[in-house]
């Protein structure tokens, strides 16, 4: 798999410490190197993709299924360390002015339709992101790219308009996926990539089947077939696991049900994710929460530990800001607004906001619904009036909260990696924050050196927290349940993909 080869010469592009983690990684995946069985593994998940085309359809389900499994990227993230490591590019160099990236591509890689993967394909794929073909908003991540050139079959040169620290990282996400020049005609139904698995079939409403790619350039994956089975709710998923209809629960949606698995013959994997559960506060002019004091009161009013214990069975991590511990600029900010209902009431009284009515409009997602109830209770304890509306996710929530900003508070997990700038960088975004100060910080972080990036983003995270731009309820855990003999599960879900390459039994 992709992270299996991480140990080899990745020093160029990423920070230090990669090799150490890489070893561990390689050791863990040793089982899969044994070369392949004809077994099938059945992975249960909750959200079925609407299409196979992540270039035009948003949502986490498609990259979760296809990225790193069918499509590969030039570089990828080590899920243990959060560092960028080689994938289809064995090596890369960054020019002095940090504008030119030269990737050396692996040789002998073929697409599942038989054609060879060359720098031509890579250039095609990256250029395509900036074209009209990509319609999803995430494509903007590569706006910084000025030109792409295939120097020879294995050398790709990318020129940026300005230095960008997030560029390389962006290449690890779906926008960095490598397509075949001939393989993009029917992306909605067909997926042609270089990954360890090939797309086999899609039985809409129940499952997608992937087959082992016989010509895979890396180590052949253990399982010959992967069935990604989709369930509409957590309970059905649990039942399937309990009755051995699946081998792995990809994401546990109801942590309270883990108790049931703890009793049985199952392994429970707990890791971390990029999913910050954000209690957003509409601070547009005229809204009650435009008053920073009230926002601070909200942050003080919430007992985060108790909330986590209640609504997510204590699984997950507390974070005080928009940075998960796996990001290099992580700082513990949980102390910024300690649980202090007295202080909250004081702040509310000072603001003259006793009994303010707040509309908490949450999407119909399990964590949001659970947390919403708890948040409501906690805020009412300090004298605010909260009404909860559940909005169907995605459509109704997007329309009401996201587009029309018709809400006071909402709860949603932002699962994209390194999305702090995205979420808090613009006043037009639904978080309605994006002060000029923060925008400058993000700008500087992206264009500055790597060290600057870290410090600026730390500053930004601190600012966001201190100004109570939002409250950060907790970081979603990556919870998986699997048969006890399944190995190679991606413990941390900090990538967009659900990496299947290392899965093995034994």
């Amino acid at each position, binding site marked *: 798999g992709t992270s299996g080869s991480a140990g080899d010469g990745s020093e160029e592009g990423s920070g230090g410490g990669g090799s150490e983690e890489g070893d561990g990684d390689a050791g863990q995946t040793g089982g899969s190197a044994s070369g392949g069985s004809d077994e099938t593994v059945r992975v249960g998940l909750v959200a079925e993709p609407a299409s196979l085309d992540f270039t035009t359809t948003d949502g986490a389900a498609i990259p979760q299924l296809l990225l790193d499994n069918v499509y590969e990227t030039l570089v990828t993230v080590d899920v243990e360390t959060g560092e960028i490591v080689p994938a289809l590019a064995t090596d890369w160099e960054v020019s002095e002015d940090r504008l030119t990236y030269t990737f050396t591509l692996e040789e002998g890689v073929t697409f599942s339709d038989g054609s060879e993967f060359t720098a031509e394909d890579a250039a095609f794929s990256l250029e395509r992101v900036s074209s009209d073909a990509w319609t999803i908003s995430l494509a903007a991540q590569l706006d910084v790219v000025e030109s792409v050139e295939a120097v020879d079959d294995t050398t790709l040169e990318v020129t940026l308009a300005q230095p960008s620290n997030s560029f390389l990282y962006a290449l690890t996400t779906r926008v960095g996926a490598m397509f075949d020049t001939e393989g993009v005609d029917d992306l909605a139904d067909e997926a042609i990539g270089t990954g360890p698995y090939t797309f086999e079939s899609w039985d809409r409403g129940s499952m997608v089947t992937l087959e082992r790619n016989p010509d895979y350039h890396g180590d052949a994956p253990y399982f010959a077939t992967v069935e990604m089975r989709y369930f509409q709710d957590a309970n059905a998923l649990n039942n399937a696991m309990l009755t051995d209809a699946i081998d792995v629960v990809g994401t546990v949606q109801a942590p309270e049900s883990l*108790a*049931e698995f703890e009793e049985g013959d199952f392994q429970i994997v707990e890791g971390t994710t990029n999913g910050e559960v954000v209690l957003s506060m509409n601070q547009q002019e005229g809204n009650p929460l435009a008053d920073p004091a009230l926002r601070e009161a909200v942050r003080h009013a919430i007992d985060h530990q108790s909330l986590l214990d*209640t609504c997510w069975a204590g699984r997950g991590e507390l974070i005080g800001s928009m940075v998960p511990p796996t990001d290099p600029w992580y700082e513990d900010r949980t102390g910024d607004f300690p649980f202090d209902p007295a202080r909250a009431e004081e702040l509310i009284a000072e603001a003259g906001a006793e009994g303010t009515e707040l509309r908490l409009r949450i999407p119909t997602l399990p964590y949001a619904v659970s947390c919403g*109830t*708890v948040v409501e209770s906690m805020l009412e304890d300090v004298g605010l009036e909260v*009404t*909860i509306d559940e909005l169907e996710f995605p459509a*109704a929530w997007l329309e009401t909260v996201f587009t029309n900003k018709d809400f006071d508070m909402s709860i949603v997990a932002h699962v994209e990696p390194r999305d702090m700038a995205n979420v808090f960088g613009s006043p037009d975004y639904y978080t309605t924050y994006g002060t000029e100060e923060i925008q400058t910080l993000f700008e500087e972080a992206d264009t500055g050196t790597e060290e600057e990036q870290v410090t600026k983003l730390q500053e930004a995270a601190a600012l966001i927290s201190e100004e109570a731009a939002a409250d950060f309820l907790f970081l979603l855990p990556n919870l998986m349940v699997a048969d006890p003999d399944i190995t190679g599960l991606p413990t941390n879900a900090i990538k967009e993909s659900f990496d299947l390459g290392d899965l093995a039994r034994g």
Partner: protein
Amino acid sequence: MTDAGQAPAGGSRGRRLNPSLLVGGAIVALVVGLALLSYVWTPYAPMRVLPVEPYQTPNVEHWLGTDRLRRDVLTQILVGARTTLFVGFVAVGVAALVGVPLGILAAMSPGWLGQLVMRSNDVLLAFPALLLAIMFAALYGGSTRVAMIAIGIATIPAFARITRSGALGVMRTEYVVAARSAGRSPLGIAVRHVMPNVAGLVIVQASVSFAIAILAEAALAYLGLGTPTGQASWGRMLYEAQTTLRSAPHLALIPGAAIALSVLGFNLFGDGLRDWLDPRLEDR
């Protein structure tokens, strides 16, 4: 020769109450009582997350235990009765308010108008509550209101039909002809004669529809299209209890029993009422 001579003994007033009516009435009264009680007293603040252990089984402090989010189950059951009754009342109210006049209109206008009303009614019949609720939820998101209105609209045909058939019967009676020849206007006849005489049928239908509405609400809550979190609802409780069905079965059983019991109550009540109002059963 008809049974004219028996008349003094007949009439609904002299009829004996049947067990269905009594048991059903008692259950309905209980549910209504619980709902009313919840306005003046609940063991804990409604829907409040309490600083106690979750998943408690029934005990002295929490008579019906606590749920995953550390809320008192009894409180939720009490307040949930309110939601249940509210949904039922509004749904049945909407259905009756629209369906009954439509049925009467259809019965009283023999021509194309009556036909049109009944045919439209049949078209509406093709949209069951669940389908409407799914459609409405897409429009407005799932909420108690959507559930009520969807169930209400879907129940209109039932009321229109039963009212029409009852009203047709009334329109054939001689007292309606007598009223016409006494100079009553059609509206006067509708109000003075038809409505009171179909009231029995409508009440029976209302009781049965009420039961159906309770079930529909529960089903909608299960699909996530009904009462949202933050409001107590039996359907919602049941839905939320699913993931801990085996570790904390009481969280599912209690609201499940509450739903089943009140549906049973309204059904029995409706059946009993029907028997009580049906003179044919009297002499047999």
